[in-house]
């Protein structure tokens, strides 16, 4: 299945792009997105414990099973305000 992944802030700087499409096995979880990208961008794994996932613009646990066409975002610690 195809998943759209969005990057922001420090994560975007590491990955080097705003957004990317990933092809993942059916039944993959949000956690798999981070592992997959971590293989290409090992610095991403340093953020593993502070990144939250959003699926279709809503926070979702790492175990969330993804569906074709989902928009996944890797959310580093926010600093608005």
């Amino acid at each position, binding site marked *: 299945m195809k998943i759209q992944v*969005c990057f922001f802030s420090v994560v975007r700087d590491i990955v080097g792009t705003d957004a990317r499409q990933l092809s993942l096995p059916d039944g993959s979880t949000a956690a798999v997105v981070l592992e997959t990208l971590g293989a290409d961008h090992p610095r991403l794994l340093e953020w593993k414990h502070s990144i939250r996932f959003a699926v279709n613009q809503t926070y979702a646990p790492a175990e969330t099973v993804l569906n074709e066409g989902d928009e996944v975002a890797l959310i580093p610690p926010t600093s608005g*305000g």
Partner: protein
Amino acid sequence: MVELVRTEIDILSAVSKVGDPSAGAIDVFIGTTRNTHKGRGVELLEYESYESMALKVMEKIVDEARRTWNLKGVAVVHRLGKVRVGEASVVIAVSAMHRAEAFEGCRFLIDQLKKEVPIWKKEYFTDGHVEWSGSDVAIG
């Protein structure tokens, strides 16, 4: 009313949006760019956001505040892009029957906004360094 804007925030417009004849109290929080951070000089801040999600999360925390403190009106406006020292990056205005509710609702909103809303700031220091806030990684 929640909004992301790219120009100076109109504070008076946010206040007038929450005015209500049944309200006896309005509290307004304004976050401004400070000229120092952990003892270092700050030139300006630059905010970016996952906008579609940020608006959803802002709506959610506004709903929660409205219900919890029986707020009459709520306005949350966050600025994106570059915000110079002294300028406002965020304005939160709430109205309520009594002042305790207005203060507590407003405080909840800014605390939750900082924790939950996908907005990030880059700090431009006067020594030329540029960092994502909290990343401890200089990026320029």
